[in-house]
């Protein structure tokens, strides 16, 4: 069986293996370093890693806020609040950034990693 392998084939095998290892490390590692802290009514509702893309429905007094986590960024994509400030705030990327939907008492804060500044106290 091995006689069917030519020298270059070993090279291809090696390159393929290295590529596989590299892409596995690139995709699967470096996950839970940064997390999104989701609060509802002042209490921590959930703490989710940014490494996994997902949508989280958070119940509040006015209704359900939908928080989207995608590409290591988080945002509030839907909220029943009248002025939609937290929705318009857009994507949160760095640790310390926070989006708060006031009437609905829902907030998303990014934690972990190097905290550049606290957007509440800045």
């Amino acid at each position, binding site marked *: *069986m091995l006689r*069917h*392998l*030519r*020298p*270059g*084939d070993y*090279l*291809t*095998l090696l390159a*393929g*293996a290295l*590529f*596989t290892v590299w*892409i*596995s490390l690139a*995709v*699967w590692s470096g996950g839970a370093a940064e997390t999104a802290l989701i609060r509802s009514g002042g209490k921590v509702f959930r703490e989710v890693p940014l490494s*996994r*893309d*997902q949508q989280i429905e958070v119940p509040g007094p006015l209704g359900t806020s939908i928080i989207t986590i*995608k*590409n290591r960024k988080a945002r509030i994509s839907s909220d029943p609040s009248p002025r939609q400030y937290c929705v318009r705030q857009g994507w949160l990327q760095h640790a310390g950034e926070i989006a708060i939907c006031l009437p609905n008492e829902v907030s998303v804060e990014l934690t972990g990693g190097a905290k550049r500044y606290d957007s509440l106290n800045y």
Partner: protein
Amino acid sequence: MRIEDQVKSGAPHSARRSILAPQSSILLDTTAEDHHVAKMAAVALGLTVLENAIPSPLPGVKPGLANIITLIVLSRFGWRAAAWVSLLRVVAGSLLFGNFLAPGFFLSLSGAVCSLAVLALSLHLPQRWFGPVTDSILAAFAHIAGQMTVVYLWLIPHSGIAYLIPIFAIASLVFGTVNGLIAASFMDNGGKADSERQP
């Protein structure tokens, strides 16, 4: 060996058909190469059906046995014939499984097209150093790359599918190597060196 047998058993009955054909029927002129492509595509189709009976842990992770045929045809009859066999297998296979023009069909097609594109390039690698195993591995990676692109652009536009890439990459590497070795051993048994490979 089995492939050789099947090729022989499907002997040409084109001559007979032309006598029996009714006047109104249209007879296409077919060359010996057409017949050969059709036979090889039929064998590839058989392997596709066989492969579908094998349970898979993850949708999309398949050994791709039909590509053994593509590799053999590539080596013996050149890229054009290999492209015919591969694309005929995709189209006929989709008709067989009833998913013609369904997402699954386009996934197969994109994989086949990308593989063929890469095989067209890998043909130019020096024969002395690179054999069917290299072709097979490169084609397997191209196949999955093409499929993932279609999945991302069309079916699941979500970066979450990136998490499946390592699994597919491992499968490509393993099955690409195995298929390449099988193809190489078939060509060896045929007693023909693949130095006959046409550009």
